């Protein structure tokens, strides 16, 4: 599997009710890459992630993960959604949430197996949540909840980890810890994360994809402080659907 791309998007377009969200996106993510997807709000970052997960179907083009349709390889993918999308009142314990990550790999009815419980304990320990495993999910702080969702994504021992805004609503210290942890995980898994904060993340990730209807990918080594400004400036202009600026950005 070495050197074979983990994710391949070939001229993918996606529109929602006729409104184009992504246009003509081609993107390759190789094994052990650590890709950050950045871009303005409503620029299509989450849509791109959901296309890779197979939750959305491209209007045009093809998406392949591990060389197959995303639905076929979901058991190898760990996914962390934005936690703001979850019901804050839901009666569920930390352990309950993490165990949901074992669903696909276990039985389709009845109780969880001992191996599932062991895997959950391990993921909880890794995220330093073992002591609060019986607490209500709703009683945790924002940072702890993010870590619970990461533990849930890790508990199935995935080869590819997809995270949507893992550091939203988290203070700087926790953010640093989180990225250190992801860097360790990156030793044996490919990571793709969505963020709106490129400045901070650029010291950890290996490459950056800038999404605003179109996608432009860069290795992080090419990125300088000036370029970040340029990308963001560019993005802001690209929201106005200006194709010329997109061309300029590709040259840069």
């Amino acid at each position, binding site marked *: 599997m070495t050197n074979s791309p983990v994710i391949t998007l070939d001229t993918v377009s996606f529109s929602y009710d006729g409104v184009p969200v992504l246009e003509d996106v081609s993107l390759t993510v190789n094994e052990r890459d650590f890709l950050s997807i950045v871009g303005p709000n409503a620029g299509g970052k989450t849509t791109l992630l959901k296309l890779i*997960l197979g939750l959305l179907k491209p209007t045009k083009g093809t998406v392949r993960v591990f060389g197959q349709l995303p639905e076929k390889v979901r*058991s190898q993918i760990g996914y962390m959604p934005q936690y703001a999308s979850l019901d804050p*009142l*839901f009666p569920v314990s930390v352990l309950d949430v993490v165990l949901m*990550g074992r669903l*696909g790999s276990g039985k389709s009815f009845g109780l969880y197996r001992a191996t599932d419980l062991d895997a959950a304990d391990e993921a909880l320990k890794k995220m330093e949540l073992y002591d609060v495993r019986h607490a209500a999910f709703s009683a945790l702080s924002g940072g702890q909840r993010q870590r619970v969702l990461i533990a849930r994504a890790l508990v*199935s021992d995935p080869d590819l980890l997809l995270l949507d805004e893992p550091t939203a609503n988290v203070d700087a210290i926790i953010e640093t810890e989180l990225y250190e942890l992801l860097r360790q995980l990156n030793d044996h898994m490919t990571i793709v994360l969505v963020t709106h904060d490129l400045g901070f993340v650029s010291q950890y990730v290996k490459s950056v994809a800038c999404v605003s209807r179109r996608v432009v990918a860069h290795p992080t080594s090419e990125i300088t402080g000036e370029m970040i400004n340029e990308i963001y400036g560019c993005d802001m202009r690209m929201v106005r659907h200006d194709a010329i600026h997109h061309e300029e950005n590709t040259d840069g």
Partner: protein
Amino acid sequence: MAEFLTDVQTQWFLQCALLTGILASIACGIIGSYVVTRRITYIAGAIAHSVLAGMGAARYCETVYQWTWLHPLHGAVVAALIAAIVIGIISLRATEREDTVIGAVWAIGMAVGILFIHKTPGYNENLMSYLFGNILMVSSDDLWLIAGLDALVVAVSLLFYNQLLAVCFDEEFARVRGVKVEFYYLVLLCLTALTVVLLVAVVGIVMVIALLTLPVAVAGHFARRLWHMMLLSVFFAIFFKTAGLTISYGPNLPTGATTIVLAGALYLAVTFASRFVRLRRS
């Protein structure tokens, strides 16, 4: 209350009513917890009202065609399942607005039921007992049907607890984990439909939503996990129904309405008390 306590020892119809209340409470607490946390109370309401179509049709066939084996509860089961599947499929697949579909099923179900009842010859005392229920009218035959439905609902909902929990909490993640989200959503709606039928026998169509949600709402103040919520909801549901029956019996009040008023009062009390406690703490 004393009158109830002496009569319940000798009167079979009271024992029957008590047993019906307890059986319905078990399904009600478990499914109610799913319904409240998944926020599909409104769908449960639509299913409840569409049940009138089934009860009306069954009563009509029973009277006009002499199908004596047919019971209004049979019609209720069929109508509730049809309503659940229609709403489920439309909300999953179609581009129609979901709340419009729910409202339509709600109203059409009632309208069809009223047409059937209007055309059924004889004295129509049934409409009132369908709408507002009469737990004291439950017969031994009904009790068997209720027990059967109850066992089915409890068994299925506990067997697929993990899947249903995941689908209610985070549908998208469940889908990524390979859980057949649409299937479990339809299962949940069908279980809701069967529970609604059980509750229609106890409190009638109009007040089903109250019994499905109020015990859960009270339990929600104390529960940290879904199955805690289910256990507590079952307990509160049994408490409300038994207390409703006991209190209403002596002064000859409508049992369903008494039960709901009691449940509503306790819910409000718990809500205010917990707000008060939170304010004191902060």
